[in-house]
């Protein structure tokens, strides 16, 4: 049976122009999405490169200034911008902490339109109040971006629905099903084969369309073969899931119109409702403490620290006797007390700020418990993780920048309290930032596969139980 189904299903799909229509649609959708994705990447890289160049230029001028100062020459900058002051280097000659894109970043906008891709942590800027969000029109955030992830998660299921909602009911309505059922075959097998073949052809078209589009845009997807396979893998199992749903609906529901309505209902349920309900439940179960109240808290602490800054500095120096010993000048500037009090505020605020990360982690955890309810969530998450634009990627970047920020600050603390000048020789010792990307995991595809199998099994069970019903029931 398979051989004949294969041969004639393909013939029919070609003759009623399904294959042609799907190819054109897929090429258009993938093409536009890839174009948008690449444009975003280009923009991102351009900005990072510009920032890099600026850092290099600044460093060159810093070295020149230091050189001049060493030789006792006069320089053209204001005295409080002399780079032999370590605080000047710490503030005005920051390192670039960038989160570069990679080969597959274009596949999902994810959170990349919301967060910054580079930071220049300075010693004086309070790391805990650093803003990592990007200047984007909120309308853009609201509507979202037309990226490959959108095409795969939202539109592909709709194509599948249009492609398969009436696989059984059309035959029933035209009457050819009775003739088929009079043949010595299992009708549920026949439906399964027919859907399987459509799944096969759509998969082939999807993979081909993706590769063609990637090549057209001059990408070589085989460079990151693992990611390419991951992307194709998750797309295919996600499609399989939708075909399984279509199978269930085909053998369960009945008339074409009702099938279409039910499938659409499933689509709204899995793609729109479950994610929003999970998100809302997550954020009401683990609510973020009010940011406005956090500001109040920080402000009160800061006000208090400012009032007691002399006392704080004394305490700080008592805790760090090494500075008192090594420093012969005992000179105290604004920066000395600033660092000491900021240090204190930072320590006292740590638990408050941690709470935010903790709540977010709890929300994430809650979602990961329940995300299997909707393969759309898993797919979206996997694709954004492959792209390196998921919430956890930006969280990771933020953590690394915060870490580097501290390294950077700590690098200058001994200079400050020892009242040591910054020299040309110290330039090479400056810490550098290197972004370590998270490694995407590919296991989630198996979860979807599991769900798809459950749907298939359920469909098969219903089909066998109602085998006769499949043929006879009228629309």
């Amino acid at each position, binding site marked *: 049976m398979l051989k004949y189904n294969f041969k004639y299903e393909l013939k029919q799909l070609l003759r009623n122009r399904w294959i042609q229509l799907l190819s054109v649609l897929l090429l258009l959708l993938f093409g*536009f999405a890839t174009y*948008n994705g690449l*444009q975003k990447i280009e923009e991102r890289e351009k*900005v990072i490169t*510009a920032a890099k160049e600026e850092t290099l230029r600044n460093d060159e001028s810093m070295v020149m200034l230091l050189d001049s100062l060493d030789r006792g020459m006069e320089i053209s900058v*204001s005295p409080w911008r002399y780079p032999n002051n370590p605080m000047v280097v710490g503030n005005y000659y920051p390192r670039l902490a960038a989160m570069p894109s990679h080969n597959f970043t274009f596949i999902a906008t*994810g959170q990349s339109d*919301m*967060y*910054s891709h580079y930071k220049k942590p300075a010693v004086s800027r309070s790391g805990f109040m650093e*803003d990592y*969000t990007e*200047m984007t*029109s*909120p*309308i*853009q*955030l*609201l*509507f*979202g*971006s*037309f990226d490959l992830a*959108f095409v795969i998660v939202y*539109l592909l299921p*709709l194509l599948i629905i249009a492609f398969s909602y*009436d696989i059984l009911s059309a035959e029933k309505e035209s009457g050819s099903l009775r003739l088929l059922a009079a043949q010595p075959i299992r009708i549920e097998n026949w439906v399964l084969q027919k859907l399987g073949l459509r799944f096969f052809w759509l998969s082939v078209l999807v993979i081909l369309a993706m590769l063609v589009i990637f090549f057209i845009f001059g990408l070589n997807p085989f460079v990151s073969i693992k990611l390419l396979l991951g992307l194709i893998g998750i797309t295919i199992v996600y499609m399989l899931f939708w075909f399984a749903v279509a199978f269930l609906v085909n053998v369960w529901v009945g008339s*074409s*119109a*009702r099938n*279409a*309505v039910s499938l*659409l209902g499933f689509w*709204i349920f899995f*793609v*729109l*409702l479950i*994610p*929003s*309900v999970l*998100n*809302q439940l997550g*954020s*009401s179960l683990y609510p*973020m403490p009010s*940011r*406005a*109240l956090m500001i*109040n808290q920080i*402000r009160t602490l800061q*006000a208090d620290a400012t009032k007691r800054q002399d006392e704080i500095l004394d305490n700080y120096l008592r805790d760090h006797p090494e500075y008192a010993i090594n420093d012969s000048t005992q000179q105290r500037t604004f920066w000395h007390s600033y660092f000491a009090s900021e240090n204190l505020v930072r320590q006292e605020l740590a638990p408050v700020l941690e709470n*935010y990360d903790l709540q*977010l982690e709890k929300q*994430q955890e809650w*979602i990961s418990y329940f995300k299997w309810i909707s393969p759309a*969530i898993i797919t*979206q*998450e996997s694709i*954004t993780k492959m792209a390196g634009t998921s*919430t956890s990627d930006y969280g990771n970047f933020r953590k690394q920048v915060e870490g580097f920020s501290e390294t950077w600050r700590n690098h200058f603390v001994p200079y400050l309290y020892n009242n040591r000048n910054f020299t040309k020789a110290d330039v090479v010792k400056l810490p550098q930032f290197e972004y370590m990307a998270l490694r995407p995991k590919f296991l989630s595809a198996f979860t979807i596969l599991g769900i798809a199998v459950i749907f298939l099994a359920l469909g098969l069970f219903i089909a066998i139980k109602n085998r006769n019903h499949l043929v006879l029931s009228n629309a």
Partner: protein
Amino acid sequence: MILKTFIKEIKELSRESRVRLSLLIVLLLLGVAVFISSRQYQQVNTQYETATQSERANWDNQGEKNPHSAAHYGTYAFKPKYPLSLLDQGVDKYTGTSVFLEAHARNEARFSAAADQTGLARFGDLTPDFILLFLIPLLIILLGYNSFTKEREMGTLTLLKSQGISGWRWMLGKWMALFVPIFLIAFLLFLIAGFVLSGLQDFGAFSWKALFAMFAVYIVFYAVFINIVLIISASVKKSGISLVSALGIWILACLVVPKMATNIAQAKYPYPTAQEFAANILADKEKGLDGHNPWSEESKKLEKEMLEKYEVDSISQLPFNFDGYRMQKGEEHEAMVYFKHYNYLKEQYAKQTEVYQSMAAISPFLPARFLSMSIAHTDYETHWNFNDAAEQYRINTQKFLNDHFAENSKFGDWSWQADADFWKKLPAFKYEPSNLKQTLSQNNGNIVLLGGWLVLSFGILLFVVKIK
């Protein structure tokens, strides 16, 4: 004739299980959405009240302090939630809610809700606007896709023709049969929302008029969708094709076009990144007067001007503290720089808005979405206005502080401190969103577009039915 058709259609609809089921689901979801939103609304506004009061207390109780220290200490402006956000959350989730107002710098509003949620937040929320804008059009499709095709399929079309029906009356009957249930659902929702809102305490700016305007927007939007669904149903042969085409249009209008519009808008009129923006501002700031730098060229120039104006030899002879005056002048220069750069942003935003409006030609969803957000004061424009008001307040505050410093202290006396009571004299920050009339006149373009859709779709529908 119209009434007969109407009654017959309503009877047919009410006897279909798919109609009853989908109506039930939509009503249930609406109930949940309104409940969640009203809870959230109350919660946010309580937090807003607490934060505003406590921040003001921080400001008032600074004690004796140099006014410029106070300027650096700064204060916060918080953005409240407006009553109609209960129905349309708009872009609220993506805009910051608190602006830090300090000396020398205009800060962006920070801490948007979306940044404090997981990536799932980007899928959207179960809010009334989601149901009003996405699900009810879908409901219209489910109710109406076979309105005309079924007559053809059952053969009743020829029978009706032989009875000598008039095309437009027949159509109007069918139109009413779709419109009345949808109208009732929306009416019920808005009525409940109105009572919930007028029942809440501290509901501030809530007006029934605005609620009615919003209701009207949705009703027009639904009428357009009904027209589209009927046009399709009248022009294709099979119910299945009608259903699939109507769904295709729904996907295109509500999901694809808005996304396409953002991509086009951002590609054509990009915003600078936060870092670039800050760097550009810094560069411009350095070109002018720095209030903290008495040695700069600009500062010397100002000094000379003042000496000439007051005909004195040294700045200590001026009748005010030149430090304070210079501070204020520096502040004014910086404010100008911010004004210039934010104006550039605004221009980009205005051009992006044009892109959205031109895309509205292929999607009635866009003007409806923008109008609804505007009336609810959850749109981007309101956010801009709030930020501008905060900036104006910041500028006024700086002037208030610098003037006090200049008028009451001696030149060079940085240790001078203002009275502990002085801070209370600063007026509180107030922001009133534009009223309904202003909102509507700002949205002329969207109103025209939505109206255009209504007229055009009605015209096509009449034309399509007539030639049958």
